[in-house]
């Protein structure tokens, strides 16, 4: 095996183009995948036509809520482009300067303050079906956030007015009496008066009024909570059932490194085995100069060692930019080593089944790329039956298991490293056996 290993290293060193592609391609691919996963979509560029007069407010009790708060909330959710008129906004959409436009009408404050109709805004957008879907989705989210923020301000003002009604004081509303008695102060005052009243019709009447005042006081107190419930009826409380929460950027690192490990390992192993057949040296070697098992093991180990070294270098290199827990480096090595072995086994199986290097490379690419994407499909994002099929496919190929092993090693995610390593070991044996069967045919 030593001489074959030495020979393959020499051939690899002389295949500079292959070597270059094997190093550059996975790194470039890994970077793209990493960027795609770790970068959230940018804020949509939206034209804002704010027709409301400056300083316009909505009166809620003694509080005034500035209408410009709504625009501010909206601006924080999008990339705003201020335009003076609706016509200008339409022109900007048509020219592609902006994805959409939001027109905040002049009478929005009056409509909200009226208490009988909702304020409304106008949304304009353009583009093909895909763009429309994207813009609508992003804009709906931005508008929902802005609505929520604005309604919280109105809730706060309303809650303050209720507080004055309960505790007494100045409501600040035109026509309201100054130094008003609070609803909460009425029952004790009435009880003192009732105590001084002789039994009779007046006392009975006062007792009825007192019961109402007590009831109203209690229920108006509850209305503060009701206001916040209406503003945000469902509060989201997240709990992670299994494992540790994986930050998106370190998960992106794991994906990028796993993809590189897979490509280098599968391509090198598949190409190495297929080369022996293409050069017609397989039959010469199999005459007793090397066992088929030894030959396959040599190709697997060489590919795994090269891919392992590249993946480890990538992980260490990325670690300079993304915060990784170096205390777990021992686990990285285990995950990368077993992942490389499983990918190497898949590679030798492909190489043994293909007759030539080009076919093996094509098969390796054609198989690896979809497997990587399938393994990244999140549960719930596709129909149940389809997800089960994807999960089954991902289970019998090494990418998902290698990804899980590395995610566990780097981020402490579930399932545990031991489970993933055992899975990878099983796949190594399975694909190794398949490669041995494929190599029965010498030419």
């Amino acid at each position, binding site marked *: 095996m030593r*001489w074959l290993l030495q020979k393959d290293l*020499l051939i690899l060193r002389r295949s500079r183009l292959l070597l270059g592609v094997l190093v550059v391609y996975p790194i470039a691919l890994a970077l793209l995948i990493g960027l795609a996963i770790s970068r959230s979509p940018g804020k949509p560029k939206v034209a804002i036509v704010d027709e409301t007069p400056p300083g316009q407010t909505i009166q809620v009790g003694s509080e005034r809520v500035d209408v410009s708060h709504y625009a501010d909330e909206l601006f924080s959710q999008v990339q705003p482009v201020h335009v003076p008129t609706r016509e200008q906004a339409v022109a900007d959409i048509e020219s592609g300067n902006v994805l959409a436009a939001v027109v905040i009408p002049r009478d929005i404050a009056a409509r909200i303050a009226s208490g009988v109709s909702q304020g409304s805004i106008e949304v304009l957008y353009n583009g093909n079906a895909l763009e429309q879907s994207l813009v609508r989705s992003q804009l709906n989210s931005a508008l929902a956030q802005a609505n929520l923020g604005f309604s919280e301000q109105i809730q706060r003002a309303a809650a303050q007015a209720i507080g004055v009604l309960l505790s007494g004081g100045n409501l600040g509303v035109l026509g309201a009496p100054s130094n008003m008695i609070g609803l909460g102060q009425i029952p004790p005052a009435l009880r003192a008066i009732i105590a001084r009243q002789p039994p009779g019709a007046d006392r009975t009447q006062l007792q009825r009024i007192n019961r109402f005042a007590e009831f109203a006081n209690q229920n108006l107190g509850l209305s503060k909570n009701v206001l916040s419930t209406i503003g945000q009826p469902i509060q989201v409380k997240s709990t992670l059932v299994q494992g540790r929460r994986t930050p998106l950027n370190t998960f992106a690192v794991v994906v990028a490194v796993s993809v590189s490990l897979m490509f280098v390992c599968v391509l090198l192993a598949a190409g190495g085995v297929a080369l022996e057949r293409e050069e*017609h*040296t397989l*039959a010469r070697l*199999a*005459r*007793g*100069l090397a066992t088929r098992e030894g030959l396959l093991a040599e190709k697997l180990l060489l590919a795994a060692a090269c891919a392992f070294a590249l993946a480890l270098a990538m992980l260490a290199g990325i670690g300079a930019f993304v915060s990784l827990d170096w205390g777990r480096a021992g686990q990285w090595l285990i995950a990368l080593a077993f992942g490389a072995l499983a990918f190497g086994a898949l590679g030798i199986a492909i190489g043994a089944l293909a007759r030539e290097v080009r076919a093996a490379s094509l098969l390796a690419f054609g198989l690896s790329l979809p497997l990587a994407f399938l393994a990244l499909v999140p549960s719930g994002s596709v129909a149940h039956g389809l997800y089960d099929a994807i999960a089954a496919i991902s289970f019998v190929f090494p990418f998902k298991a290698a990804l899980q092993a590395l995610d566990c090693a780097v981020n402490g995610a579930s399932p545990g490293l031991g489970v993933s390593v055992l899975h990878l070991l099983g796949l190594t044996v399975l694909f190794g056996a398949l490669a041995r069967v494929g190599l029965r045919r010498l030419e």
Partner: protein
Amino acid sequence: MNVISVKGLAKRYGERTALRDIEFDVVAGELVAIVGPNGAGKTTLLSIIAGVQSASTGTVAGTGVGASIGWAPQQTALYSKLSVAENLKLFARLEGVADPDRAVLRMLEQTGLGERADERVERLSGGNRQRVNVALGLIGDPPALALDEPTSALDPPQRERVWEFVGALARSGTAVLFSTHHLGEVRRYATRAIVLADGELLFDGLPAELIAANGGDGDFESAFVAFLKAHGH
């Protein structure tokens, strides 16, 4: 003493019989040509003798069979990214040759490829590749050599060089068994001819005997064709 002894050899691929009841012996220094039409079983026979394939029934025995026979397949089996010397040294090591460097020098000298020793195989001409292919078969100094159509892709001068080299081997005592479609080579170089057709051994003797028996006027090819016709092929 027989270097190769084939007894009752048969090879079947499922329902198809590639070889049936083949028997012959080869002694040291013989240069035996195996000829026959396409699909006669020439490559199958040589690859079984060389240990690349196993026989369905029958035996192949002698000092020059299996892994101990030198083998040069029809398509050159070389690492094209390695040089001539690197290929030779690799196989010398894999064959367990005691002194690989010396064996490489010997083969470079025998094949006349000394000047091309450091040249990568991918840059060699077809003839030189075939010479390296044969040299790889000889690196372990085997008592016998099996050559499967060694000159099929070569031009006449290149064929001439290969036969000079192979002839010298036979003269030095190596038993050489070769298949070919160039029937003129059988007349010129072979000391014995074996004719196969549809997996059957139809003739085993001197090329001159086959010519004489089939009225070939000294032309082996016309005698061979007449012989096959007479046997229904």
